[in-house]
C-alpha cells in the first residue's frame, strides 16, 4: 500500500522532471529539473531494495555529473542559444516516430504483463547479508575483469576530456 503510493510519487517525479528537462528554454532550469528526475529514479531504486545503487545515484549523478553539467553551462555562453528557436525543424517527425515506438513498446509490455509473476527466491542465497555485500561479492569475484576494464575506460575518458578541453588540440 505505502509501496504503491511511493511508486507513483517517484514515478511522477521522474517523468515530470524529465518532460520539464527537455522543454525548458534555459539550460540551467533544465539541469535543475534533471536533478529532480534523477532523484526520483534514486527513490525507485530504494523501492526495489537496491540500496547501493540508490547511494551511487545520489552521489554520482546528482552530486557529480550535474555539477559537471552546471560548470560547463557556466563556461559556455548560452544566452544566444536561450533566445534562439529551441526545437529543430524535424521535431514533428521526431515526436511522431517516438510515439510510434512507444506504442509498440506499450503494446508488448501489455501483452507480456501476465508473465511477470515474481520469481521464488533461490534456496541457496543467504538473506542475512545486505545489498552492498552481495554486490561486492559478485563484482569482485565473477565480474572482476569487467571491473578492471571499467577503470581503463574511466582513465581514457579522463585523458580524453582533458585533451578536448585544452586550448590547442
Amino acid at each position, binding site marked *: 500500500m505505502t509501496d504503491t503510493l511511493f511508486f507513483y510519487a517517484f514515478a511522477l517525479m521522474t517523468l515530470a522532471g524529465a518532460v520539464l528537462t527537455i522543454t525548458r528554454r534555459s539550460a540551467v532550469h533544465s539541469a535543475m529539473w534533471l536533478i529532480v528526475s534523477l532523484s526520483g529514479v534514486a527513490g525507485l531504486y530504494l523501492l526495489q531494495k537496491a540500496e547501493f545503487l540508490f547511494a551511487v545515484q545520489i552521489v554520482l549523478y546528482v552530486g557529480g555529473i550535474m555539477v559537471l553539467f552546471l560548470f560547463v553551462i557556466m563556461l559556455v555562453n548560452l544566452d544566444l542559444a536561450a533566445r534562439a528557436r529551441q526545437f529543430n525543424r524535424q521535431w514533428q517527425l521526431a515526436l511522431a516516430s517516438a510515439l510510434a515506438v512507444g506504442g509498440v513498446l506499450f503494446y508488448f509490455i501489455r501483452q507480456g504483463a501476465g508473465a511477470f509473476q515474481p520469481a521464488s527466491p533461490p534456496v541457496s542465497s543467504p538473506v542475512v547479508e545486505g545489498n552492498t555485500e552481495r554486490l561486492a561479492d559478485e563484482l569482485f569475484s565473477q565480474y572482476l575483469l569487467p571491473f578492471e576494464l571499467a577503470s581503463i575506460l574511466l582513465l581514457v575518458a579522463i585523458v580524453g*576530456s582533458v585533451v578536448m578541453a585544452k586550448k590547442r588540440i
Partner: protein
Amino acid sequence: MLHPITTAHYLVLSAALLLVGTIGVLARRNIVVILMSIELILNAVNINLIAFSSHLQQVTGQIFAIFVVTVAVAEAAVGLGILIALFRNKETVLADEVDLLKW
C-alpha cells in the same frame, strides 16, 4: 483500489522515460540539453535492469547497472569536453548549426 506494484509498472515507467529522452535527443537544438537527454535514456535502462534484478531475485542486474553508470560518467565527461572544444572553435552550442559534414 490501489493495485500492488509489479515489474510491468516499472517497465512502463522505463519505456516512458526512454521516449522522453529520445524526443529530447531528436528534437532539441541545444547540445547541453541533448547530453542531458542521453542521461535520461541511460537512467531508463537502469530502471529496467533494477526491476528485473529484483524480479529474478538476482544481483547481476544491479552490477550491470553499475557498469552503465560508469559508461554514463565517461560519456558525460568526454561529451562536455567536446562541447567546450566546439564552442571555442565555432561559437555555437546549437546542434543544427554544426553542419560541416552536410552536403
